């Protein structure tokens, strides 16, 4: 066997790729991680966007379950859990601060309503928790694992009790707009509570069917937030290398090598992944190739439709993964002063009500730029002083909703400048002196993310969080249990169950399947 042969090649050193590789290496596999960029992290990687100022590309907080943190001993490599409050701002109103179960600044009626809301939502989030950490078998063929999985889910739902069970069946499909309308009255609180059901995906407050599940998914790991993402990525790559994983950066994969081998049980030839070819022509062989790239990139670019059956290819082609979030990084010469906020150490939401969110979405659905963008932002340099020169700060904002393709001309200098300008105008309404503090700015549109980070559609979650693209259907049936129609080729990215955000769960689940 060639020296250059690995048990497993993981394509992409995003956080899921690193988690997956670490688990495999810890189980004795010889693992190589290939990363196209010069640094690890994928969309969680840190880069210098202005001299002396660094920021994380797409993410600024992680929600790794404790289990992964402990298994990989991430604390030994510098991982530190933190806390992240959600601070809601509305011009002229007292800011609201939400810290898990505690809500500060709200009227007493809303406090009570929030308690009821939180109790229910938290209970449902707990119920789902185990399902994010397991492989959900395919449905419709009455297999034993299928029956067991659904029996477990059925049992879990039963144990909610009659009333909560009824509420579960009803609210799971509600739009955030309706759900929150039933509970709270403060427009700002509604916007804050709806945000986590919407962020990153093609959903507006009035869109039914998907957002509550998304919210429950986002809530599952709230106990283990890490706000220092560069630290997390270092810990993950440190832990991976300590486990024996070989990581090669600057090594973009051109394609996955696929060979036809005679079938084991029939005459039909089977296709098997046997390694990868790098863009520089180098070939590396492996018994198993696990792709941390998104489904479209993996199947249509790296593997090739010629190796897939037409129905599967169609399903991948129609997979909805056009991102709607742009990232704005600002280099600031001091701490930004948001009116009414003493310490901007949380996630600041600049969306005064759900209507404003809805109107921003309405613009984007036609390919227009939002007239009044809504955004969440953080000052990551408060949590990691290395990101900016002493006394200076980085502001990192996720702007919703920005179209992947701007109508009539696409993303041009003009449209980028227009978005930057409207974002600054919104920021100014909350932090009046911010414009004078700006030393430099970087705007990353979904298209930039696609081009720079090789993520199809520039989608944060590697695909919309929608009922038909979730659980045993993520990314699509036939590839939703981490294996793919091509033997030896597996998926471990956010385009698999349970989905996006910095949770490490797709990588964790994929590693378990790869070791089977």
């Amino acid at each position: 066997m060639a020296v250059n042969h690995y048990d497993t090649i993981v394509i992409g050193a995003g956080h899921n790729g690193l988690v997956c590789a670490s688990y495999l290496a810890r189980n004795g596999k010889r693992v190589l991680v290939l990363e196209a960029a010069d640094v690890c992290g994928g969309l969680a990687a840190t880069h210098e966007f202005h001299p002396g100022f660094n920021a994380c590309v797409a993410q600024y907080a992680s929600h790794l379950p404790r289990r992964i943190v402990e298994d990989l001993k991430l604390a030994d490599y510098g991982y530190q859990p933190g806390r992240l409050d959600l601070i809601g701002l509305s011009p002229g109103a007292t800011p609201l601060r939400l810290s898990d179960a505690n809500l500060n600044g709200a009227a007493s009626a809303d406090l009570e309503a929030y308690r009821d809301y939180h109790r229910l939502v938290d209970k449902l989030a707990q119920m789902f928790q185990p399902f994010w950490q397991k492989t959900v078998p395919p449905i419709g063929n009455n297999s034993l694992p299928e029956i067991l999985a659904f029996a477990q889910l059925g049992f879990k739902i039963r144990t909610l009790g009659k009333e909560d069970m009824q509420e579960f069946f009803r609210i799971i499909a509600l739009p955030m707009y309706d759900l929150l309308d039933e509970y709270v009255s403060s427009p700002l609180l509604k916007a804050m509570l709806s945000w986590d059901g919407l962020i990153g995906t093609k959903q507006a407050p009035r869109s039914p069917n998907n957002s509550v599940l998304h919210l429950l998914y986002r809530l599952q790991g709230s106990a283990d937030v890490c706000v220092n993402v560069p630290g997390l990525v270092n810990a993950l790559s440190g832990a991976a290398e300590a486990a024996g994983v070989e990581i090669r950066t600057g090594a973009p994969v051109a394609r996955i090598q696929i060979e036809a081998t005679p079938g084991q049980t029939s005459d039909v030839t089977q296709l098997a992944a046997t390694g990868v070819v790098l863009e520089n022509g180098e070939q590396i062989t492996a018994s198993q190739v696990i792709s941390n790239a998104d489904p479209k990139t993996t199947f249509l670019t790296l593997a090739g439709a010629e190796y897939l059956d037409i129905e599967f290819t169609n399903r991948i082609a129609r997979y909805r993964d056009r991102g709607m979030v742009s990232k704005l990084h600002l280099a600031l010469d001091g701490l930004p002063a948001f009116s009414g906020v003493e310490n901007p150490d949380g996630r600041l939401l600049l969306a005064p009500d759900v209507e404003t969110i809805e109107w921003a979405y309405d613009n984007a659905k036609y390919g227009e730029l939002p007239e009044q963008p809504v955004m969440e932002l953080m000052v990551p340099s408060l949590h990691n002083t290395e990101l900016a020169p002493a006394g200076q700060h980085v502001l990192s904002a996720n702007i919703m909703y920005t179209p992947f393709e701007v109508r009539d001309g696409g993303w041009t200098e003009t449209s980028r400048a227009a978005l930057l300008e409207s974002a600054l105008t919104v920021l100014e309404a909350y932090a009046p002196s911010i414009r004078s503090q700006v030393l430099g700015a970087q705007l990353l549109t979904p298209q930039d993310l696609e081009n720079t980070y090789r993520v199809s559609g520039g989608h944060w979650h590697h695909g919309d969080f929608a009922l038909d693209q979730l659980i045993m259907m993520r990314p699509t049936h036939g590839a939703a249990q981490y294996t793919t129609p091509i033997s030896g080729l597996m998926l471990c990215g956010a385009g698999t169950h349970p989905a996006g955000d910095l949770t490490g769960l797709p990588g964790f689940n994929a590693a378990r399947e790869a070791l089977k």
Partner: protein
Amino acid sequence: MSQYDAIIIGAGHNGLTNAAYLAKAGLNVLVVEKNDYIGGAAVSRELHEGWVYSNCSYVCSMMRQSLHRDLDLSRHGLMLVPYLGTVNFADNGDTLLSYHSEAAAYNELKRISRHDADAMFRIQTDLTRYSQVIRKTLLRTPPDPTSFKPRDIHELLFLAKEFWSLGEKELYEYIRFFTLSAADFLDEYFETDIVKTSMAGAGIIGTALGVYSPGSSYILLHHVMGDVDGSIGAWGLARGGMGAISNAIASALQSYGGEIRTNAPVERILVKDGKASGVALSNGDVLNADIIVSNLDARRTFTQIMEKEDLPPGIYEKAANYKIRGSSGKVNIALSGLPKFNNVPDNPYVNRGGQAFSGSLETMERAYDCWKRGTWSDDPFIEGVIPSAWDPTVAPPGMHWMSNFIQYCPPELADGPWTEEKRDQFGQTVIDKIERYSPGFKDLIVHMEVRTPWEIEQEVGLTEGNIFQGELTIDQLLFNRPFPGYAQYRMPVKNMYMCGSSTHPGGGVSSACGANAAREILMDLRRPNTVPEDDCYDE
């Protein structure tokens, strides 16, 4: 002593159906109706001498065939006539005609796009197949998933079996209906906007969702699962207007000995010792009955004609939270002649179909954006039909009437409630748009009735003028309709039931809600069931 075995509030088609089946089982029933005419939203009204408008619902496809035949509605005067294809008008003046004849439909589509002509076969086959599963649930009572009663478990297993028997691949495709927008769904089949648009209207009619809203593809399915006497997907008209349906059911009811009292608005449902005992009419009359059935929508039933104290805790709030949004308007027009439309061949076939002024997907979606902002679009989606083209009983000789259904129309405007002036402006918007496609249209107008959600609520009694008595979204379908725990027609107060479209299977002139409720009532009374099972056609 009770005067009646059962009183049904509201003489809409579901109330009449419910009463008919109870009367058929030998009960002494009375239907009370607030208006001086029966039918609720399935009515024919002569608002201008010589013209009979179906001034609310205007076409029919959900009517359950087994009920139609069981109640012998044809003998009671009902005649359903399938209507021919629809002409779609695009923003740029293009038209697309749909035909019943597959060959004709294919040729017309091919004129636009060969690809889409082929895709139309696929989508029709797929939609028909998917609708089979739902069709089977229409005349069944939804199970309570929280219950351990054998009947509920049996029904749950029935549902599971029906869905699972779709098979792995189909099941995945099916789930997509509940999350895809109508536009996304149609994108997967078609390449041209006009063909997509021609299909998209069904995804938004009557609902507060847009063609780009996730879940609107289910509404599309809801609108294609109907049939005209077994011909799935077909749409029909009732000869003499939609009131002919109500009148036929009423006639069946009377033949079984049931009574109907019009001009009898109910002020209160009377509750004694936690049991419904009768109704108080607004003229002061009190009528007692062993059973009270409300055909009103869930919001109106619990928040308007019941005392909050009579309800168990939480029900009032559930009713107040019930999603029942006014989103549609109606403009009924008496015409002195048959209008001519641009780019449409002048043949009798085309004139006997509908006219969908849909524009484009974006035009439709922008109309929805206006609704969200509490206004109406100056370029709304209009579905028109000219029933007089093949029903000579609804207009004087040589003259016609046109029904126009407008999506969207807000229940209340951002700058305040509807006024007569604003209503007339809304009507003007509609005829201006039609005039664009039919020059000279306005000169034909003899009389015009404009109905916003406000008028529909005032006259018919539907909250916000919602034609389905509640949104058809997952949170309000099947065992969630109208609210979880009360989907089996029995209401939180003993001896009280609901039989309107707020219950499973939801809106549409189907009579299914009324019949299902009757079956449950008779079961509680330990009387033999008089309600037939559905005829399901597997294609």
